[in-house]
């Protein structure tokens, strides 16, 4: 590991880190952006608590302005916190910021590299900032650029890369020092479907190799497919967290689509008014199960009204349902 160990204390901190140490532990994190000209102060984080285990793949979901980028910014050292504590691999980011930063790789939302610089130089320079000697950095850069399919572009100026390649360059740069934790701030925003899927495969492989990944995203499908755990953030606090399965079970927002053999009659629907059903068209009903209600029970009630069910299918977007319902609260 190429980290800047500037003192014996730092070396001891590394030794103290066991497998049980959380990759990230955030407690009571608050951030208020000061007033600027005509803008009043903005309270972006209001006491956020979050723990991420080593090797976990966490998706941080939330609408715009929820506090996702602020959280990532504070974790990576780009934003000053107002209050609270953050530990990265057991190291306090306030007392040992340099040590904590050595564990993290950041893939930002914006293309923040020098567009006039060659691809290889961007990656090798970043490795240098992490204390990796140039000869070693060149080898490591070759490795990550090959892995991300950018090796044949190594001598191209970054400005001449396609949008997708630029995104991959951000990932290569973040991985060159082999971070224990990779933070990705909406890495697939504006990326086409094929490329997005390629990036998902890469992130799955990276996660399987033991890297802890924190991903903020607007694509709920992305969170559902990739993450082992999801944390939903809104108005500066975590409002729900768990595995996708846990969230669905806990919140029971299962939505089913029922196709009927005959057109739906209003009289039958009146009998179902205590249930969460919605007529989508003459032959289609949408059923959202109430908390604690089983599929069997719901179907029995519907069948009792005389409605003949031809087919049942899942409404899909399960996480989306949860997400929308949660942030509405």
């Amino acid at each position, binding site marked *: 590991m*190429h*980290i*800047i*160990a*500037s003192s014996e204390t730092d070396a001891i901190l590394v030794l103290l880190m066991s497998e049980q140490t959380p990759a990230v532990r955030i407690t009571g994190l608050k951030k208020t*952006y000061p007033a600027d000209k005509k803008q009043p102060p903005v309270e972006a984080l209001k006491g956020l608590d979050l723990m991420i285990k080593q090797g976990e793949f966490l998706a941080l979901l939330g609408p715009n302005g929820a506090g996702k980028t602020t959280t990532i*910014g504070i974790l*990576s*050292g*780009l*934003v*000053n916190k107002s209050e609270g504590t953050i530990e990265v691999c057991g190291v306090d980011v306030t007392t040992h910021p*340099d*040590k904590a*930063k*050595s564990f*993290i790789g*950041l893939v*930002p939302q*914006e293309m*923040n*590299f*020098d*567009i006039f610089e060659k691809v290889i130089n961007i990656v090798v*320079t*970043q490795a*240098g*900032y*992490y*204390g*990796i*000697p*140039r*000869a070693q950095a060149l080898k490591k850069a070759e490795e990550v650029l090959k892995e991300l399919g950018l090796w044949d572009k190594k001598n191209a100026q970054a400005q001449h890369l396609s949008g997708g390649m630029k995104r991959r360059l951000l990932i290569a*740069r973040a991985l060159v020092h082999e971070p224990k934790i990779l933070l990705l701030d909406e890495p697939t925003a504006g990326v086409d479907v094929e490329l997005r899927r390629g990036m998902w495969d890469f992130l799955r492989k990276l996660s399987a190799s033991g890297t802890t990944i924190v991903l903020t995203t607007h694509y709920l499908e992305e969170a559902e497919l990739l993450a082992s755990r999801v944390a939903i953030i809104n108005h500066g606090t975590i409002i729900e967290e768990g595995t996708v399965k846990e969230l669905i079970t806990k919140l029971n927002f299962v939505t089913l689509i029922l196709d009927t053999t005959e057109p739906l009659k209003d009289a039958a629907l009146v009998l179902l008014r205590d249930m969460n059903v919605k007529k989508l068209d003459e032959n289609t009903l949408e059923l959202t199960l109430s908390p604690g209600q089983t599929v069997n029970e719901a179907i029995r009630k519907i069948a009792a009204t005389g409605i003949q069910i031809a087919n049942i299918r899942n409404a899909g977007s399960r996480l989306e349902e949860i997400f929308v319902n949660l942030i509405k609260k």
Partner: protein
Amino acid sequence: MALRSPILVGYYTMVRKDVTRVLRIWSQTLLPPAITMALYFAIFGTFIGSQVDAIDGFPYIQFIVPGLVMMSVITSSYMNTVSTLYFAKWIKTIHEVMVSPMPNWVVVAGYTSGGVLRGFMVAVIVIAVSLFFTKLTIFSVGVIIGAALLTSLLFSLLGLINAMYAKSFDAINIVPTFVLTPLTYLGGIFYSIDQLPEFFRILSLFNPILYMVNAFRYGFLGITDVPLSLAFGVMGGLTVLAFIVVMYLFHTGKGLKT
């Protein structure tokens, strides 16, 4: 020799990147001072200077060369750090440095060294140009290097402060235009303050650039309007003060972190 210490590797990476940039865009960084100073030497030194009496026994052109070299060092060092850091802020490449585990003092040392090296490169070029117009005497190499080093260090640090506060490209030109240039011109480059009326002579003593120009001139000609120890005291004191301010601003993340 391969560098082993991560801190040294980080520092070397910063300096290498900056020096590579300075050399790559030499027509913007190294050529302009050579042309500007050649004009100064020709117009003020040769054309007008030939009509001016010798100062302290030295022909006018010989008297002004050290000051003009120092003016180039000041401008180059300042502009190097202010433009490098402000541009890095503007295109957000500063984040590459900020997310890294390099301590703040290494980052400050990296940027400052870039400014000092550009200042020295420009000094060598301008001195070489001056040889086309006059002969050069050297009184004390140590004083020349010491004065140039402290001056370029100080103005590299001041450039960083300017860049941290700057919120637009205009803001990085305001200080050089309205503060640096007047102070430099009034810093005894073209005259000895002993030639000034008493009030302006005393007023000039409050201009820190006067001490830098005179110390540098002493290194070449062995003459100075101010005591050498005072000159080095002013340069050293201001450099330490500027370093403390820069470190404090980096610690708080002024203009860098939100």
